[in-house]
């Protein structure tokens, strides 16, 4: 036998792999519980968000000559000059496959295209990433990635809209991870403000406005009231969406870690048994050889 490692070494190795597996397994379970809860929350927000978008769209089409700072001017929808604001949603922790990297890559793409961009970062991972590379962060929101709430989203949204209202931020982007289906997700970069006029144009076949609406007090006032809600609503659903993806990514990562551990344990226990067996064989050979030698001397 050419085994070098002794039984003791292999045994400690097996133990350490088992310990790690316990941790990854626990993380898997925690992630799956969190995912279930977050998904439920996502389901709760969907109707509101869908209705809000739908209504803005319809208001916009009823009165599409409305001039609002939240829309691009009617005949000019080239990107604006000046400082952009970008909200990047990452996780607080790593160990979630490529989840964080994808979101950060999107942010870097945006920074390359438009270097004059202020970053607003959600999540500890993103904050650390950008600080390490000396990329200035305008504001980071800690402890938000773990527990997305409407109040938090409102706070973030208020800051972004405030910057936009004062003209400090000309355009606002949000980078989050969208769950396309249960198994696949992708990092997305979406412009929140200003809106494209075409953005709210709808495919044919939607319920048309049959009677004109009366607006109280005015179209602009209604829109001004709705846009901040829309922004905070978007941020809220983006936070939850990202959180779901994070947990999902972590589940997948931990699941494959568990599988790897299983495989490793299988290999190690095979090795352990082999070494043990060969040790026993050797001992028996030695004992019987010794006995034979004794017998021969007596004769």
């Amino acid at each position: 036998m050419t085994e070098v490692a002794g039984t003791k070494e292999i045994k400690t190795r097996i133990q350490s792999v088992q310990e790690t597996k316990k941790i990854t397994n626990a993380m898997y379970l925690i992630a799956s519980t969190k995912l279930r809860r977050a998904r439920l929350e996502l389901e709760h927000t969907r109707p509101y968000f869908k209705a809000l978008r739908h209504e803005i769209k319809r208001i916009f089409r009823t009165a599409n000559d409305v001039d609002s700072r939240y829309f691009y001017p009617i005949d000019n929808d080239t990107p604006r000059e000046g400082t952009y604001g970008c909200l990047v949603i990452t996780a607080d922790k790593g160990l979630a496959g490529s989840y964080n990297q994808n979101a950060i890559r999107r942010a870097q793409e945006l920074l390359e295209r438009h270097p004059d961009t202020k970053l607003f970062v959600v999540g500890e991972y993103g904050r650390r990433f950008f600080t390490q590379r000396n990329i200035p962060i305008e504001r980071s929101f800690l402890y938000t990635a773990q527990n997305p709430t409407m109040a938090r989203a409102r706070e973030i949204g208020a800051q972004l809209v405030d910057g936009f209202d004062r003209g400090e931020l000309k355009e606002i982007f949000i980078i989050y991870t969208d769950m396309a289906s249960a198994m696949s997700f992708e990092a997305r970069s979406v412009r929140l403000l200003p809106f494209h006029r075409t953005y709210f144009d709808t495919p044919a076949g939607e319920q048309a406005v049959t009677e004109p609406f009366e607006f109280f007090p005015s179209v602009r006032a209604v829109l001004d009231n709705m846009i901040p809600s829309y922004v905070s609503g978007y941020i809220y659903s983006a936070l939850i969406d990202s959180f779901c993806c994070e947990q999902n990514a972590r589940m997948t990562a931990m699941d494959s870690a568990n599988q790897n551990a299983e495989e490793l344990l299988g290999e190690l226990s095979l090795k352990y048994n082999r070494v043990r067996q060969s040790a026993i064989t050797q001992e028996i050979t030695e004992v019987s050889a010794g006995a034979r030698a004794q017998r021969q001397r007596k004769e």
Partner: protein
Amino acid sequence: METFQVHILAADKTFYEGPCVSMTVPTSDGELGILARHSSMIAAVQPGTLRYQVPGEEPRRAAISPGMVKVEHNDVLVLVDSVERPEEIDAVRAQREIDESREVLLQKRSRQEHQIAQATMARALNRLRVKNMGIGR
């Protein structure tokens, strides 16, 4: 009395969906009453008290935050950030929020913080008001 359909949607839940006899919404121009067959309109909702009456029941009230209300074909849609029933409101928490935001307002903080504190305070005051009205009834 004739009824109409209402959908009251908050960002985190669907608050109420069903028939309704009458409804009062706080808007920037004052309280707006809605009965069946109201003409089509869209209005900006201000933080305040929402009152609505489900057929055969006592009028209910709820604290609402800014948003919009839309009336179209006897169908009313209320879209707001949050809606809370009086019994859901935690008076102690609301009072604490009021105190905290008052403190922030007293200190000369940045404009942004000032605005956020003001908005928080308005919401908390509104919640407390709705809560206390609910008890007095």
